[in-house]
């Protein structure tokens, strides 16, 4: 069986679902960020795979994968800074205990 686009799509769907499960069920804000990183990786696999199999020779998929990697680094930096700020004022990183705005 020849390695093709469906294999990579299946893998990225699996990776995205695993990340989504982590985001939905974790209490620790840092673990939620880890799940988001997994989901962004799944999207990147899709971008590079489509670049390879649908438009080889030009580079849009890889360029956008690089943009997504950069934005993931931004998101991690800002998200982890927010976690630090929340921990400093609330003494917790568990998102179900950070409920100051909840009625």
């Amino acid at each position, binding site marked *: *069986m020849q390695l093709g686009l469906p294999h990579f799509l299946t893998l990225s769907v699996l*990776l995205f679902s695993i990340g989504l*499960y982590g985001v939905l069920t974790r*209490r620790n804000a840092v673990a939620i960020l880890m799940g988001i990183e997994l989901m962004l990786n799944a999207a990147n696999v899709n971008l590079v795979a489509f670049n390879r199999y649908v438009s*080889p020779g030009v580079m849009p998929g890889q360029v956008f994968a690089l943009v997504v990697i950069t934005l993931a680094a*931004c998101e991690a*930096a800002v998200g982890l*800074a927010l976690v630090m700020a929340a921990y400093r004022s609330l003494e917790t990183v568990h998102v179900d205990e950070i409920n100051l705005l909840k009625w």
Partner: protein
Amino acid sequence: MSGEMAAFILLAAVTVIPAIVVVTSRNIVRAALSLVPAFLGVSGLYVLLQAEFVTAIQILIYAGAITVLILFVIMLTAGGTGLPVRQVNEQVPLGIAVAGALAGGLLFVLLRARWPVVSGEMPRYNAKAIGTALLTNYALIFEVTSLVLLVSLIGAIIIARKEGS
């Protein structure tokens, strides 16, 4: 089974098994360290897809920088990392159902669709082609991304610093 297929199966296992550890492990440090093999497996998939520049960036930024950043924040927020602390909320069955339903739906759509697959090779020396593309067709995206990077780094510093110092 071709060697390419065997490499894909190996790399898929290296990616997916640590990813499951990341979302299920009770020990948050083990979860964070499991991110490294998952990211390295994804970078191996990029090699299979003939994207060597993205591979290098993936290893540098994800496996190198983001994992270390996450480990540092775990260390600084030590209250949440102890083993006795419950790490999952009460929505595990619902989370499994949502993730499974999304996976099923996406697989159903993506594997039934007919993609316009063409045969062809990626250009040799990916980095050169990507650099040319970034500075010609995608120059605006490149500039806006660098602006977002600058703003988010300044924002992160301002958010994370101590009040009043």
